[in-house]
């Protein structure tokens, strides 16, 4: 097994040598293909030969020195540049391999990523001018506010499958509930209050991505038949918070690329030191 592995290393090294020799006298596509194949074999060799760099160190090399009459460590000039090239190649391959694994396996193993954390509901203020403007846009601006219609109340907010939010509340049974959700802009949702006075409205992050931070919610109920609406509910707000896992996954490209840049800079620095 060990001999087969070492023979493979010998063969791959020889392949690189042979292909380098072929470069002289080649041109056009041939030379490009040859260079690509040399790089690929170098990467393969780097991976295959990695245990050699771990198991064989220069300190282990000893020799019998006649003038000393005994064994001593013999200094020998390994080519540091080759070590750096190979190590760098392996690290880059490993980084990209990990990145690929992360992209492929995380959703499989953990399911849809829990992208947001939702805190408890708390009441903030929403500008009445903003509410009026939205009402106008929603075409319900002519509805008369009456105290006889029960004001809606928020009872909870949940996130579903990592991305969407569902808002729950109560209100006047068998009416329409109009919900205002604010971020940089304000979204208006409508839903139906059932006969038990409960309603729920789902917000899809794909349609309107809520940014990180606090967002306000307010609502009223609207009776289409009589053209009247309730007063606004107390305004509530909830917080969208990005998790560390989301940050890692979202920035995996940046991390991988940064690591490559770091390795190249470190490699260049070490090469300069060896000159």
């Amino acid at each position, binding site marked *: 097994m060990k001999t087969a592995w*070492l*023979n493979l290393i010998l063969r791959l090294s020889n392949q690189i*040598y042979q292909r380098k020799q072929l470069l002289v006298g080649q041109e056009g596509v041939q030379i490009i293909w040859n260079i690509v194949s040399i790089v690929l074999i170098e990467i393969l060799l780097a991976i295959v*030969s990695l245990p050699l760099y771990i198991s*064989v160190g220069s300190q282990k090399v000893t*020799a019998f020195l*006649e003038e000393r009459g005994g064994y001593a460590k013999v200094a020998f000039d390994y080519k540091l540049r080759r070590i750096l090239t*190979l190590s760098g190649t392996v690290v880059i391959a490993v980084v990209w391999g990990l990145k690929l694994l992360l992209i492929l396996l995380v959703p499989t193993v953990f399911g849809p990523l829990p992208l947001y954390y939702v805190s408890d509901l708390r009441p903030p203020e929403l500008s009445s001018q903003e509410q009026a403007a939205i009402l106008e846009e929603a075409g319900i601006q002519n509805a008369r506010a009456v105290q006889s219609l029960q004001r809606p109340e928020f009872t909870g907010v949940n996130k579903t499958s990592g991305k969407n939010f569902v808002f729950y509340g109560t209100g006047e049974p068998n009416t329409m509930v109009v919900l205002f959700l604010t971020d940089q802009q304000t979204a208006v949702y409508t839903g139906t209050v059932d006969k038990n006075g409960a309603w729920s409205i789902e917000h899809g992050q794909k349609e309107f991505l809520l940014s990180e931070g606090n967002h306000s919610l307010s609502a009223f109920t609207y009776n289409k038949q009589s053209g009247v609406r309730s007063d606004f509910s107390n305004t509530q707000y909830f917080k969208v918070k990005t998790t560390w896992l989301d940050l890692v996954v979202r920035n995996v490209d940046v991390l991988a690329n940064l690591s490559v840049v770091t390795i190249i800079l470190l490699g260049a620095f070490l090469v300069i030191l060896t000159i």
Partner: protein
Amino acid sequence: MAKSKSKVILIVEDDEVILRALYLSFHEGEFTIATATDGETALSMTQRLKPDLVLLDLVLPKKSGFDYLKDMKADPVLKSIPVIVLSNLGTEDNKEKAKDLGALDYFVKADTDLSVLVQKAKKVLEKNS
């Protein structure tokens, strides 16, 4: 370090991957391994260590394997040291040239099984002991 003198093999190879692979192949035997990565260092180490066997690559920096062979075989103290060539150069011309210069055997890397090379080295060392 109180040890009896074991057989010393000098491996001359400029490709570090192959050098390490050769080191690992011979390391488990009863040999002491010394290494050099260019022809000049190889010659000075040969003069200093007087190894029992030299495993020589031909394409080397500073001094080629052929020049190393020429200089070494011209030295009356060193000329009896057996040299086995392990090279990428596979043409008959190169094989003949190396043998004419005093190489005991010639292996081409593309066709070489390292276990065969180790066996060959052992035989040479047994014969010379």
